């Protein structure tokens, strides 16, 4: 009986992951429908068709490639994203495989996925492969530094505000955002963090959605591994978007009134919450991610080339200071 229930749990986890993957592909299709040249509804399935066409091509690798990492690296990189997906509560309040959505585990699997993805590209042994891998590493470091700064400073704020709970748990952050009255400076800090994270997703937004490689880059790398790498990029951005949205989503919006009336959890209202959560994730992916990334690029473009690196650390430090200032206000009170 115990084994059966465990198997059912895993089956549910995989079903949820497949549903999330479908959601990611839908969001990507919607993106290409809205921003691409064509307004035909068939654009909704454009990313899926690209993946299928690429996967059906014969596998081609450069002569200099190491076969094993460049062939199987993308598959393992994609697989490492799935445990992260299972830890974000997409459909119920409780994640399927969780320790309260442990941020350290999420961070470790994200790192593993990135390392495997970078190794796959790097092991192609070409100059353009090296350049692409170097770009991946830089973008990953930027995103992860901002995320660590965001969650660490927010944890400090929640602790100062007297919220008890595991500071590494994703649920602690959602509870904190829902139950505590947050001062303006913390909201401002969060807004800056969200702007920075969404602008540095590590993906170049093109008219056809997220493109992991630039035009004409790595043409000597074709077939199923490249298709999986493309899917990996789509899924990665969607999960990152979902993680940010989940943390700052107003969860109490449809719950408080009915919960007090019925004296417990209202499943109808909770379902409504999750429907709006999914809509918010798709909206953020389709509208906010390209907006933030274009705004950030324009901002960097206004500065001299030597100083183009400056806005990222500057904004990160400013956001940390804003959140810490909010915490110090509470301590003083």
């Amino acid at each position, binding site marked *: 009986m115990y084994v059966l229930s465990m198997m059912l749990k895993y089956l549910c986890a995989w079903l949820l992951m497949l549903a999330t993957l479908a959601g990611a592909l839908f969001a990507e299709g919607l993106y290409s429908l809205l921003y691409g040249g064509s307004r035909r509804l068939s654009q909704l399935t454009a990313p899926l068709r690209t993946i299928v066409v690429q996967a059906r091509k014969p596998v*081609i*690798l450069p002569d*200099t490639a*190491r076969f094993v990492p460049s062939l199987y690296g993308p598959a393992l990189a994609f697989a490492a994203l799935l445990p992260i997906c299972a830890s974000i509560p997409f459909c119920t309040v409780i994640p399927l495989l969780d320790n309260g959505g442990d941020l350290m585990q999420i961070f470790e699997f994200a790192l593993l996925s990135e390392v495997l993805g970078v190794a796959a590209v790097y092991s192609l042994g*070409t100059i*353009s492969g090296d350049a692409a891998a170097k770009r991946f590493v830089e973008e990953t470091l930027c995103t992860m530094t901002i995320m660590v700064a965001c969650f660490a400073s927010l944890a400090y704020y929640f602790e100062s505000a007297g919220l008890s709970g595991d500071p590494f748990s994703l649920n602690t952050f959602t509870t904190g955002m829902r139950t505590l009255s947050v001062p303006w400076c913390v909201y401002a800090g969060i807004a800056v963090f969200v702007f920075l994270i969404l602008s540095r997703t590590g993906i170049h937004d093109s008219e056809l959605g997220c493109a992991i490689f630039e035009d004409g880059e790595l043409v000597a790398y074709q*077939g199923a591994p490249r298709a999986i790498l493309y899917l990996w990029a789509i899924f990665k951005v969607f999960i990152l978007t979902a993680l940010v949205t989940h943390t700052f989503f107003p969860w109490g919006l449809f719950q408080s009134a009915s919960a007090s009336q019925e004296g417990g959890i209202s499943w109808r209202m909770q379902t409504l919450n999750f429907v709006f959560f999914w809509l918010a994730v798709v909206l953020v992916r389709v509208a906010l991610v390209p907006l933030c990334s274009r705004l950030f690029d324009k901002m960097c473009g206004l500065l001299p080339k030597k100083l183009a690196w400056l806005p990222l650390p500057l904004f990160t430090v400013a956001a940390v200071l804003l959140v810490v200032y909010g915490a110090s206000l509470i301590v003083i009170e």
Partner: protein
Amino acid sequence: MLHEVATGFYVWNVLSWLFIFVITGAVLCLAVYLSVRTRNGRIAHVHAASESRGMQLWDLEKRLRGFRDEYVRPCLTAPHWHVVMLAVIALLLFAAVMCGGTGF
């Protein structure tokens, strides 16, 4: 945390994450393997000699030597090398505390 580790909950939780990773990874690797096998019977090659960087991923000795010459030596000979070392130690301590806190 200690209680969780003692009762095996935490270990089981980590194992279940790894289980999902390993099973999905194996299925996808098999799909790639079959895709390679069923296409041409072998992997197609594209001549990319002009793009070759002349060094492979696992050429560890060369890479480590390059890393030492490019990063470690300049750090140790720089005027503020102790600041760099302090930052490295702080980073290691931070990692240790983070990992210790989660039971890894």
